């Protein structure tokens, strides 16, 4: 297959697992013999090495930066959001150029927020390219809200549903439900496939070396990921007299909030912020830890890090309701707890007290990951979705010039409308 992958960011420029996952699938598809071209944005922070098959030609309208989020005046923010989620003619032009050059059989769309996602999808449909969108966030809902945090615009969502000819792969039922609850119904066009790991480490048998319980967290240093909850759980454990444990927190992002929490709770002896690590570095670290604490929020689509940790036999303790939880069974191949410090402390205490056997859960989890969650197992299912999209076809093929002209008109009209409304 000739596959055109579209993603707002592509490593080494990335925000989180979504982009990392994209690269892993691209590599796997290439290894499987497909011709894959990646179309992404120019890197945000300095040049990156040129890579064959990766075209950094799109313009990123960054809505993830704090300036856009908190400082921009409402009208400027509205225009910015419209270009990011709605239509950005420049990116439509760049996409149509690549489609003409590469002539893909199918477009494999990832996160298209910040690229004028609706415009890109409409352009693909206009020139008759079938597409499959891989969802690891509520992308269609955000596109139909035309802003990162606003509510979905009902007529836009209804039009999206009516005109959409693409297919979707979604990493969890929870994310799919969230998209539906936002007013964008894509149930009938979606296949739920979990996220994956790409490594196959040796099975481990040894846990709690010298009786010491080692817990880690890896991910972005954000309150919604539950870093604070883990720190508070550690303080509760210490207060209950448990001392033979450590919590190491690896992550990128600002950590001053958590530094101050550690100081406030006087838990420096047990909790350590260890800074950012690459995926490869984390892969080497997981085997030295017994538990992966993951008190993430209920909106978590499905994080990669707990899967990778579980592949190494490091037992994940997950929030009882999150995307990861719907793929793993409590007490069988993972542990689950309510998203509170007390509940997490209780589960860790049970492990500490020997009530829960990590030597049983860890290897079982690792085997399940290897069997059901390895990319090599999931890739044929992804390929099947891409083939199904090709079979369905992308609809009538119309002129690329026409698509670009329409994008220009739409972009300018919407900008005028926003300015007039603001005035």
């Amino acid at each position, binding site marked *: 297959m000739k596959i055109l992958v579209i993603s707002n960011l592509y490593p080494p420029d990335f925000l989180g697992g979504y982009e990392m996952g994209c690269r892993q699938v691209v590599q796997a598809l290439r290894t499987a013999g497909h011709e894959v071209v990646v179309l992404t944005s120019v890197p945000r922070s300095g040049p990156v090495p040129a890579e064959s098959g990766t075209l950094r030609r799109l313009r990123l309208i960054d809505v993830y930066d704090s300036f856009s989020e908190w400082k921009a005046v409402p009208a400027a923010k509205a225009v910015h959001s419209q270009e990011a989620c709605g239509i950005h003619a420049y990116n439509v032009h760049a996409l149509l150029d690549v489609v003409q050059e590469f002539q893909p059989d199918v477009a494999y769309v990832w996160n298209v927020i910040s690229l004028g996602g609706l415009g890109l999808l409409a352009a693909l449909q206009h020139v008759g390219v079938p597409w499959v969108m891989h969802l690891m966030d509520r992308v269609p809902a955000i596109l139909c809200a035309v802003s990162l945090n606003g509510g979905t615009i009902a007529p836009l969502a209804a039009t999206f549903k009516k005109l959409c000819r693409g297919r979707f792969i979604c990493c969890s*039922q*929870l994310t799919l439900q969230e998209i539906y609850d936002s007013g964008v119904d894509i149930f009938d066009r979606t296949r739920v496939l979990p996220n994956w790991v790409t490594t196959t480490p040796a099975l481990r048998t040894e846990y709690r070396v010298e009786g010491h319980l080692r817990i880690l967290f890896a991910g972005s240093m954000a309150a919604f990921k539950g870093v604070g909850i883990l720190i508070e759980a550690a303080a509760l454990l210490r207060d209950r007299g448990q001392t033979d444990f450590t919590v190491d927190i690896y992550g990128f992002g600002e950590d001053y909030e958590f530094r101050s929490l550690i100081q406030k709770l006087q838990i420096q002896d047990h909790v350590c912020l260890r800074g950012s690590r690459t995926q490869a570095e984390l892969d080497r670290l997981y085997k030295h830890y017994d538990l992966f604490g993951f008190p993430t929020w*209920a909106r978590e689509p499905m994080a990669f890090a707990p899967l990778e940790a579980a592949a190494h036999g490091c037992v994940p303790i997950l929030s*009882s*309701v999150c995307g990861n*939880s*719907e*793929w*793993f*069974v*409590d007490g069988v191949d993972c542990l*689950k707890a*309510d998203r509170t410090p007390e509940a997490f402390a209780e589960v860790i205490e049970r492990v500490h007290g020997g009530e829960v056997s990590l030597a049983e859960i860890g290897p079982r989890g690792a085997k*399940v990951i290897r*069997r*059901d969650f390895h990319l090599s197992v999931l890739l044929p299912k992804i390929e099947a979705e891409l083939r199904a999209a090709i079979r369905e076809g992308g609809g009538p093929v119309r002129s690329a010039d026409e698509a670009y002209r329409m994008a220009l008109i739409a972009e300018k009209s919407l900008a005028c409308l926003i300015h007039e409304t603001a005035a």
Partner: protein
Amino acid sequence: MEFEFYNVEPSGGLMSRMLRPFRRLLRRIQRPYFQRLRDLLQTLYGQQTAQAQRQNDFATQLKTVEDHYMARIEQLEKTIAHLHGVVGTVQNEKAFFQTDYLAVTRRLARLEDLLIEVLVNTPVVPEQHPGPSLAKIAS
């Protein structure tokens, strides 16, 4: 309460003493009206006092009722808060079981697929295992 205002005899000077017989005469003539007025004033005073008493009693009763209902409201608020807590716990438990249930069913489906795959790839002698073909089940 004294209402016989007409019995008041001012202690005055010479002029007052000279007028006293006339005043007495006038008072004597008007006595029936004054006495009627006195009776009316006494009745009104009595009614007013009784009314004030009733009002006071009513206010006391009202306060008692108010206190009773405030206590009831407080109790109901506590009950509602408790029920909210219970509902929250039940919802959490429900969400937990739904999520875990989904995980279990997915795992079961996956194991079923794998089992069928293994069975299909295992040579089966038809005479020993009557029943529908496994290839058919797999398809």
